[in-house]
């Protein structure tokens, strides 16, 4: 009964005209971001974060969430039609989706991608609805040592799951933690590394740094790469999958939804990993694995379901523990904190209308996306044909205005540009931005909980091994730190043996 009441409260919030409008705008902008190359969902959320300051908290988070799952939907369109993923979670959709388009089945691939995303998104929201309150209640018993261990394990797991060598991700995480120390010390209030700059007293702003790393750096990186793309030109018809398509896709969608939701909860790029794991799983379970990659619908349905379910799952650690597990969740945390709302174990109890309104808006948003994606596919194809030479100046200008509009402060533009150049250089060297931004957000939580833990234990680190949850998380951290080293040693041995 309590659940029904809560859901009813949620729909009452989500179905207000203003929240419906922001949900629609979020889904629309998200699809646009997913379709267009050059600005990923992280950059888009960072950019629009500055516009949500004057909104009600519920409207703000509803719109930003719409962008996130909208981008997951939109990303599949470019994968299928151009063989270029709009965002990383749609990379695997290229394998069979693009082949299907070449065989004249673009409509079926696009339609199934939209339906699979809708079904999985809805399943993910149901999971979020049940699991987040449970975890939130369990986390009420967490103290500073648990929060320190949780942030440490989260960052290590993210580094482990990142692309490229783990050491690079760890270096980015350390740099992010260091940047997070700039400003007032969270305990004593003493200024650190501000050098008299007023803007830095509260630390580096999340928005200028994120827009630099994910907006400016991404545009510079795209400009650095040459090459043109050709959009699939044939008319797109038969968007509704036929009975055979449904028969072949039913199980991959169900499996992808459950798998994606579970993987989404873990730290790291959940939707990306979920889509790859789903593809591998479907290939292994298939009676005809050799056909994967030649244009079969299971290769589209499973991964598309998985990446959308993962977006819902990734909200769980943020909303119930107050710990973001990816760059985009760090931005959501920033969005809530701007409005004076601290996500964490007490979040659902303190802000039931916000939480349940947000959940209900995700149902509504998923339905809106189905409407946006299928009948409007022609428009998205046209958008896709916008020359990058025009898009790039537009994105850069909006990044500049977006950052300036935060506090009417030119220094924040300089910060964004500096992090843009830093992000670009690091990308070229194979260093990812996600561990950096996540560490920057988690840094103050991590530092405060570590120092409080040491105060409690009078300087003894034993505390982290005597509390069961802490000990388990520390063991997980050590395993993920040591495992890659052991693997490297093993592969060196193997390559050294005749």
């Amino acid at each position, binding site marked *: 009964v309590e659940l029904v009441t809560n859901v009813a409260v949620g729909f009452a919030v989500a179905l207000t005209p203003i929240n419906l409008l922001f949900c629609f705008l979020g889904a629309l902008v998200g699809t646009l971001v997913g379709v267009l190359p050059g600005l990923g969902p992280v950059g888009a959320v960072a950019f629009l974060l500055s*516009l949500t300051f*004057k909104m009600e908290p519920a409207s703000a988070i509803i719109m930003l969430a719409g962008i996130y799952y909208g981008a997951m939907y939109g990303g599949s369109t470019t994968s299928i039609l151009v063989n270029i993923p709009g965002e990383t979670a749609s990379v695997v959709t290229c394998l069979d989706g693009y082949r299907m388009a070449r065989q004249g089945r673009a409509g079926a691939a696009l339609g199934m991608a939209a339906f699979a995303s809708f079904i999985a998104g809805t399943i993910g929201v149901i999971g979020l609805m049940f699991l987040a309150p449970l975890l939130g209640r369990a986390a009420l018993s967490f103290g500073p040592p648990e929060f320190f261990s949780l942030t440490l394990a989260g960052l290590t797991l993210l580094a482990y799951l990142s*692309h*490229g*060598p783990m*050491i*690079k991700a*760890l*270096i980015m995480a*350390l740099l992010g*933690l*260091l940047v997070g*120390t700039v400003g007032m*010390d969270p*305990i*004593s209030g*003493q200024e*650190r*590394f501000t050098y008299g700059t007023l803007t830095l007293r509260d630390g580096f702003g999340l928005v200028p740094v994120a827009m630099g790393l994910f907006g*400016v750096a991404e545009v*510079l990186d795209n*400009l*650095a*790469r*040459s090459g043109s793309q050709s959009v699939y030109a044939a008319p797109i018809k038969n968007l509704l999958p036929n009975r055979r398509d449904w028969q072949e896709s039913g199980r991959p969608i169900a499996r992808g939804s459950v798998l994606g939701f579970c993987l989404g909860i873990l730290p790291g790029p959940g939707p990306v990993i979920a889509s790859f794991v789903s593809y591998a799983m479907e290939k292994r379970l298939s009676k005809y694995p050799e056909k994967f990659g030649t244009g079969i619908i299971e290769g589209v349905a499973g991964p598309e379901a998985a990446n959308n379910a993962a977006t819902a799952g990734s909200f769980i650690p943020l909303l119930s523990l107050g710990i973001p597990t990816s760059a985009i969740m760090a931005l959501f945390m920033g969005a809530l904190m701007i409005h004076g709302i601290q996500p964490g174990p007490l979040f659902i109890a303190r802000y039931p209308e916000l939480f349940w309104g947000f959940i209900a808006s995700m149902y509504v948003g998923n339905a809106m996306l189905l409407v946006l994606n299928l009948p409007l596919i022609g428009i998205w194809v046209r958008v896709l044909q916008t*020359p*990058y*030479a*025009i898009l*790039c*100046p*537009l994105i*850069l*200008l*909006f990044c*500049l*205005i977006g950052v300036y*509009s935060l506090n*009417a402060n*030119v220094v924040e*533009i*300089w910060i964004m*540009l500096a992090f*843009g*150049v830093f992000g*670009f250089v690091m990308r*070229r*060297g*194979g260093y990812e931005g996600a561990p950096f931004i996540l560490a920057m957000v988690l840094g103050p939580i991590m*530092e405060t909980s*570590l*120092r409080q833990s*040491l*105060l409690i234990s*009078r*300087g*003894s*680190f034993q505390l982290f091994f005597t509390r069961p949850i802490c000990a388990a998380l520390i063991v997980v951290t050590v395993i993920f730190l040591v495992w890659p080293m052991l693997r*490297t040693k093993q*592969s060196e041995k193997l390559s050294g043996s005749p």
Partner: protein
Amino acid sequence: MRSKYLVAVLLFAFAVLVFLAAGALPFGTARVPQAGFFPKVLALLLMLLAFLSFIQPRGDREANQGSNPIPAPNWFRLAIILAALAGFALVLEWLGFFISSFLLMGFLLRAVEAQSWLRMILISFATAVISYVIFARFLGVALPTGILGI
């Protein structure tokens, strides 16, 4: 390959710099850690990782990257674009939002891919007007007015 060592050396130097800069902050003790505790520990860890990345052989994933190297970017074009963005930051409050946006758009449109003058002027003007309406009118952002008063 050489860039790998250069990055490692730069990271190490940065970590040393942070450690020295944090020297002015009190470290405290393990019982009562102070403001300098966390930054100094992080700087030491960064030194360690920079050293490890210096001595670490290339992993499989990196080796694969080596066989398919990232093409060298057009540095000159990137430098021009960055200079334009920095120029925008410099003149924004003096020239005002409208003129700065118009000039930046026009410059970037030419710098990224040479557009015709008419197309460039039309797109830049339309962008400046639309963004002014969205930000200043709809969102109520206080954009700098500058010499034109808009």
